């Protein structure tokens, strides 16, 4: 149950990031490299929260 909720949250978060990135690259194709490395960072942070919650739901 908890793991499922964590996955839903992370899915929405990463989906929103992907939406933003696709738009940003479409608007400024020359900045794609820089945008990509920032994307990784944001996606990692969202994923980190999801992993923490998933583990918490496993432990409790």
């Amino acid at each position, binding site marked *: 149950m908890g793991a499922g909720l964590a996955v839903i949250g992370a899915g929405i978060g990463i989906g929103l990031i992907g939406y933003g990135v696709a738009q940003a690259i479409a608007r400024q194709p020359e900045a794609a490299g*820089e945008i*990509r490395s920032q994307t*990784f960072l944001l996606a*990692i942070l969202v994923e*980190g929260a999801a*992993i923490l919650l998933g583990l918490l739901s496993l432990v409790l």
Partner: protein
Amino acid sequence: MSFCLYSGAMLGEKTTGKWTMDQAPQYAIDHVANSPKNLFEFEILDNLSQKISSFLGISSDSLFYIDLGITKHVFLLFFVSLITVTTIVTLIQKYISNKKNIPSKFMSIIEMFVIYLRDDVLKNFIGDKEYRSWAPLVYTIFFFILFGNLLGLVPIFDLFGLVGKISHIDSIYIFSKGGNTVTANVNVTFAIATITFCAFIFAGIKKYGFIQHWKNLAPSGLPWPLYFVVVPIEFMGLFIRPLALTLRLAGNMMGGHIALVIFITFIFSATAEIGGLAGLGIAPFSVSLALGLTMLELLVAVIQAYVFALLTAVFIGMAIHVDH
């Protein structure tokens, strides 16, 4: 490949008529877990671990007993380190001694990783001037994790497990139930994350001095009541960073391997619960899913190594450039 051998090992269990559906989780856990016993018996190590533990006042049956013995994952750690060092050193030696300066096949792969990390990660996040002093750490972490992850997909211990299962030698089977991903062990990733933790604290202290570094933790110029909120949050964040690093890498590697094994156990569960024909029918789906997942694991192995290196660089950069 790993899952083929693994399913072979499970087939042995099936033919002895012991397979039930409840065994699937146990198999998955065994696949990623460390061996319960030491692989090799060294009296010196045993004596040393007993001495250290009795010095710290820990009894031998305690959970916190410090055992220096060589278990499966410890052995693999040495193995991964050896492979990493020899591969990189021989490739670079060959490249340097090469008169024409033409990189070989593997050298160009390594060059690609190194240049990508330098341009996209190190220069971006640590800074154009400071990145040179931190590059060796980030590269070491990246290549160690990459080799550890990729070696997890090569069935070394699965092979031992299969041999032990078929020949009914329990002593081989017990400590080699498959699974040789060192990075799926939380202790290993926690050790690497601790190195990162020390590194970014050291980076801050080196740049700003001991006291100023800890002052940098909270942004200056806030109204004073806010500090009661900001300082604890920032302090907690400091410790959550290595924890998240640990769990991300271990969780990703462990999750992938557990999913692989569970897909394969579908065959055996269907056979045990419904019948042989159902097992045969589900086998193509199960194996193709596992094959696809193995390909995904190859991708994940590289991405997770990259992510760990990226976050190390980001944290060091955050300690060095406080203003943003």
